């Protein structure tokens, strides 16, 4: 187990390093000058004069070679200094400190919804003997799976905020209102639901369903029944735990999808998280912010993957022996739909 943990952690670290280099390089490849877009943003969308652009680029050090800039960035990043936003001049670290917790909260709750809902629906579909129930759950899951995440979000917004007016449509709280739990919860429900339902919810539920259904006639489940265990014990201890392994293996990767999905969800629900920050930064070519956000997102995803691996190892101790690829024998359907 120790070896397994170390191996996983080392891999995660390597992934983060590779990620930082990759996203720095990727953003560097993007043409178009951040300076131009800053100036344009400042002048109300009017095109900026090329000489001004060149001057600003020089001042921002954007004309240094890529390795120099990467070195500068890394040496800052390890000290928690991600530079300042090209646009507002605000330290990126400060922006992250302001926004990352909200994204974590949103995705955390969405993961919770996703897990509770998918496990619930999947188990119901796997365990019920009523064909109509199973079929209607399956159909519902299929329908959810066919809907782009943003459509789901808009639909929820339309139903619960615009039509029924049960829930607020966005933000953390009313402006000026202290952000307390009682205020936050209703504001959180719609975006978290949208995020959970809009991103692989069906996949998860189906993984639970097939994972559990496949085990229903497994010898150890049969044995558990033959030993006169209570149905609840058989289901919870012998059927569900191992049946959740494929789902858990997939969930770690899925969190990445979810966070990426949060980008659009945060835009729609005015949720002040890193995703919204990233989209805005991307539109303004504010690479200082974008690079940091991507890195932070990547770190969260890597951590989520790590947690997913640990969950799998906990659910199925055999995995600890092999030390890698807990998902692979189950088909490893690691589709990332960001």
């Amino acid at each position, binding site marked *: 187990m120790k070896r397994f943990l170390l191996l996983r952690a080392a891999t995660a670290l390597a992934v983060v390093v590779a*990620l930082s280099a990759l996203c720095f390089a990727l953003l560097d490849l993007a043409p178009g000058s951040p300076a131009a877009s800053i100036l344009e943003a400042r002048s109300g969308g009017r095109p900026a004069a090329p000489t001004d652009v060149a001057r600003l680029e020089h001042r921002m050090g954007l004309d240094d070679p890529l390795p120099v800039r990467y070195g500068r960035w890394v040496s800052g990043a390890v000290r928690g200094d991600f530079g300042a936003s090209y646009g507002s001049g605000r330290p990126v670290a400060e922006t992250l400190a302001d926004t990352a917790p909200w994204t974590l909260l949103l995705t955390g709750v969405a993961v919770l919804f996703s897990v509770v809902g998918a496990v619930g629906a999947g188990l119901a579909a796997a365990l019920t003997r009523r064909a109509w129930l199973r079929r209607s759950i399956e159909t519902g899951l299929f329908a959810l799976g066919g809907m782009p995440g943003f459509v789901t979000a808009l639909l929820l917004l339309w139903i619960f905020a615009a039509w029924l007016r049960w829930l607020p449509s966005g933000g953390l709280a009313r402006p000026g209102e202290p952000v307390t739990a009682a205020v936050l919860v209703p504001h959180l429900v719609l975006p978290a639901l949208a995020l959970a339902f809009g991103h692989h919810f069906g996949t998860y539920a*189906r993984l639970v369903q097939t994972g559990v259904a496949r085990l229903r006639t497994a010898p150890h489940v049969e044995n558990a029944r033959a030993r006169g265990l209570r149905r609840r014990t058989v289901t919870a201890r012998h059927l569900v735990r191992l049946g959740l392994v494929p789902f858990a293996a997939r969930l770690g990767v899925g969190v990445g999808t979810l966070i990426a999905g949060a980008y659009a969800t945060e835009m729609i629900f005015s949720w002040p998280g890193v995703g919204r920050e990233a989209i805005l930064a991307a539109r303004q070519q504010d690479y200082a912010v974008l690079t940091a956000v991507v890195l932070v997102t990547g770190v969260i995803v890597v951590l989520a993957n790590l947690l997913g691996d640990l969950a799998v190892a906990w659910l199925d101790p055999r995995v600890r022996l092999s030390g890698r690829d807990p998902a692979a024998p189950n088909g490893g359907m690691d589709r*990332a739909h960001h």
Partner: protein
Amino acid sequence: MPITDRADLTDGVPPLSGDGGTPAAPTRGLLAARVPVRRPGVWAAGLVLAAFAVLAVFAPLFTPYDPIATDTAATGLAPGSPGHPLGTDLLGRDLLARLLYGGRTSLLVGLTAAAITVVAGVLLGGLAAAGPRWLDELIARSADVLLSLPMLVVVLALAAVLGPSLGTVVLAVAVTSWMSVALVARAELVGQRERLYVRAAHALGLSRGQVLRRHLLPGALPPIASIAAFEVGHAILTESTLSFLGLGIPPNRPSWGNLLTEAQAHLLTGEWYTVAFPAACVVATILAVNVLASAAGQGEGRAW
């Protein structure tokens, strides 16, 4: 589920299947061929896809309108208006024409992206499975990195380097989804390689190439076909999401994603059908594709 990466570690005797007389659980290969015939849903899904494909390919035969030509004399017509069965948008563009031509784009993106994804994924997965251990590790770790990288960034960079276009979307989808195919292909090939019948084939004196061609690839094909079908749906979904974020198909080329994006501003202002039609097309296509994909991957405990 059982982790049998070294079945020959002990001389352990594999369990018998039941009393031995009755056929064991049907194998996947068998089912892949059988399932579609048995399930009406599969036929329906195939029909829907075929209909969409025909409508898209022969779009000009089904509508006299140019999907991007505006008509300021016929703006915002409701469905059922004379000459415009599905109505028009606020610029007077015929919605049916836009849906048909949009289907062209979306299906094209879906199919080509899925094709590239699957070919690349199988190739890389095959390399990982067959190649030396370091290559396996390299591919697996690259997949890890890419899975951790929000797709948005990749697409942003690609769109910036190549300019947003259909090709960029296709490439973006492929670059960000080959990993799943590669992982499945690798797992399948490794799993197949350790199956007894592959050993039996080697024992017959077949060459590596022959074994790969006759046994490994056909064996890995159903799950790959299944994932390929999912990729088509995934690509269409991704196309629409990217277009929604303004990173996808150039806005002037109708695609279902673009139609949705344009229309979503009208969700509350009366023109609900501008959202409903393209959304229905996307959902129906992905449903159909998913039904087919599940049928292909049936029995593997695989989900979509």
